[in-house]
């Protein structure tokens, strides 16, 4: 497993994509739920700025990932807007045998055109993060709810409070990644401990992104 293929689609669609991918040789996948967002003031004002999404992850070889990109473009019309987006991140599967083996440098080819910026902040601050990213030129974003690792507390019931977290996934052109990162970091005060974390993952290939067309939301939007 040299990479993980990600697809963000409307809710209910992920199973169909997964099944198709299995026909192409994928062995399995993991699906989680998220919310798509649109960068539009008007829609936001009337509250129409959200839509339900599913995110599908399929571990696969790079070759298979390329095939899956072709597959979503052809079978699920990712070539059209708002059908969904897909991207590949070079996640390497770890096994014990492999422990200590020095991995080779990334496979050749052109430098990746996109980066995947992931920010993890306390719940309710996800929207602020998206606004900061939009201000710095990002176009869409997918919001996922998760939880932090538990911290024991001393309330009447000894609860292990698991702080709710927002995870924001933004796919942006590589040259925009740095300004977006700076903007998010400064507006959400990420330099202070405990305010959240941000990290950038390399992206090998994308489908369904329409970066150049004005008014488009990078396909992440509904």
């Amino acid at each position, binding site marked *: 497993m040299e990479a993980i293929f990600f697809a963000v689609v409307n809710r209910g669609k992920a199973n169909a994509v997964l099944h198709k991918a299995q026909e192409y040789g994928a062995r399995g996948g993991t699906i989680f739920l998220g919310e798509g967002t649109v960068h539009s003031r008007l829609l936001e004002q009337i509250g129409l700025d959200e839509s339900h999404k599913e995110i599908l992850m399929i571990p696969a070889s790079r070759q298979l990932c390329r095939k899956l990109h072709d597959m979503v473009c052809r079978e699920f019309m990712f070539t059209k807007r708002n059908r969904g987006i897909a991207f590949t991140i070079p996640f390497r599967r770890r096994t014990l045998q492999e422990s200590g083996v020095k991995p080779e440098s990334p496979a050749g080819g052109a430098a990746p055109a996109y980066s995947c910026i992931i920010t993890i902040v306390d719940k309710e601050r996800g929207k602020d993060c998206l606004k900061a990213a939009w201000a710095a030129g990002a176009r869409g974003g997918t919001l996922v709810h998760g939880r932090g690792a*538990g911290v024991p507390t001393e309330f009447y019931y000894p*609860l292990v409070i698991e702080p709710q977290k927002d995870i924001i996934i933004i796919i942006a052109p590589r040259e925009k990644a740095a300004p977006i990162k700076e903007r998010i970091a400064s507006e959400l005060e990420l330099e202070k401990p405990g305010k959240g974390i941000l990290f950038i993952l390399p992206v090998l290939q994308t489908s369904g992104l329409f970066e150049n067309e004005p008014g488009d939301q990078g396909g992440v939007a509904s």
Partner: protein
Amino acid sequence: MSLLAEKAKDVTRTLLPVVILVLLLCLTIVDVEAGVFIRFLVGSAMLLVGLSIFLWGVELAMNPIGEHMSREIAISRTPLKIALLGFLLGFLITVAEPDLLVLGYQIEAASGGALSASVIVYMVSIGVGVLVSLGIFRLLGDMPFNRFMLITYVIIFILSAFVSEEFMAISFDASGATTGALTTPFVLAISLGLANIKGGRHTEENAFGLVGIMSAGPILAVMLLSVLTEQKNIASVEIDVGVAEGVLGPILDALPSIFVESIVALLPITLLFFIFNFTRFKISRDELSRIIKGLLLTLAGLVLFLTATASGFMDMGRIMGMELAGMSRWLLIGIGFLMGLIVVLVEPAVHVLGQQIEEVTSGHIPLNLIRITLSIGVGLAIALSMVRIVIPEVKLWYFIIPGFALALVLSFVSEPIFVGIAFDAGGVASGPMTATFVLAFAQGAATVIETADVMIDGFGVIAMVAMAPVFSLMVLGTLFRHARVEFPSRKEKEAPSLPPEEELQHNCIMVIVNRGFAESVVDAARLAGATGATIIRGRGTQEDHKVVLPIIHVELQPEREIVLLITGAHLSEQIADNLLADPLLVREGEMAVFMVPTEALVKIPEQDAPPGGASSGT
């Protein structure tokens, strides 16, 4: 697709079968005046718009309010505060429920004034308050849900030996009346919020069940009232079964009173939230404006929806019941089954519950399967109610007591998450559509059949609708747990190759494990030097086997958890090895570990176990 469009699509899909069934009947065997017929069509359109807006508002307003309130309850430092807050919530949302007041007046009339409407409303509200409060203690104190329900229903069964059949019907009906269109989504949100805060392995099970617990409150309250006041028999009173004429007149007549009722019903939650927001939560302006917007949408949607059911659907149901009962008894039972099958899916709370099931299990439980099971349960309930109307010898308790008893037995062998969902579904299914359309249908039938009693048989219908889904979903849960077959399949590993660039000083580790193992992953990672992690719920097909439900051939995707760790490059190898060396995680957790070098911006607090907000970092 935006949220509103999503809701509208969902509502259309569930409403369409109802409209088609009524249209077919009206065009073939049932003879309906043009006015009523057109009013039904207008009502359907209003219902479509109203319910879509309502569900949208619920998602914008009710869910966050429930979340904030439940947090306030969970972080109490004394049990007294938990008890008081829980009671207050339960009491306030029930006392404002318009359906309950209507029921109160009916009982007042039926008991010849011996029981006043306000006594009934307060008793039932106190019952709900006590049960909600106990339910919260159960959740936070980790008492198994099935044991709690067993104790509750054993008390109900004992009490039911002392009350008459009429009172038994009324008490179950009161439970249906309290779980209205507004209270159910709110209590579901509270339950979800509490479960999320409590966390741990039982999060998903805990997200359901509070509605089920709450619906036991009115049953206990009314039965106790009957035993204490020794009020056993009630006289049957005439229920107005007239049919309004015209198209717009009845709709406009119903609108103002429903508007007032809806505001009254929404008021306690709103006030409570604003008081707490002012003193405790102090949420951001953006979120507040969102919630206010949501509340207004909820109100608008509720008014439209309730007006539509009261004016458009009620008369249609009544006429259909009367005509069909006059034709053939078998036809009545058959159409009753069909109506139950499709009408329940239009209930607002059914949509909300479905949404919550999807969110909580990340789609692990197929939503359509839940809906089909719910439908079949309610269909049978209506059909059996028709049998009861046609044959007076068949008593209500023939069905209610064995139904609940069997469901309770099954709750010990069923998949745990289904136990909560099943009891919730009982409260959820008996909503405004049942209380108007289906009830009117039954009452219409009862007026034609001489041996039937309009009021008592009417009460029985809602009791049946409240029982049947509990039973049918519990059967499904038992199937889920016991009838899985696993297909082993091929297994092979690929040779790895790939990369960090030297300047990247962090690694992103993504671990995918079966549900319940995320905490062990975090613990193991901490031992190797990681400081925090973020966990996402998901579902997935594993690589080496798949699970398929027999008979219906639905593929189940096991629930998985995704753990994200950002660690220094020097630590990541060690952490990954540590995880992979844990045989439990690899074998039982079916863990997969992925790694990628990353450019990260991470600030670690001084202590190694960061408190509260910091714990998502590395």
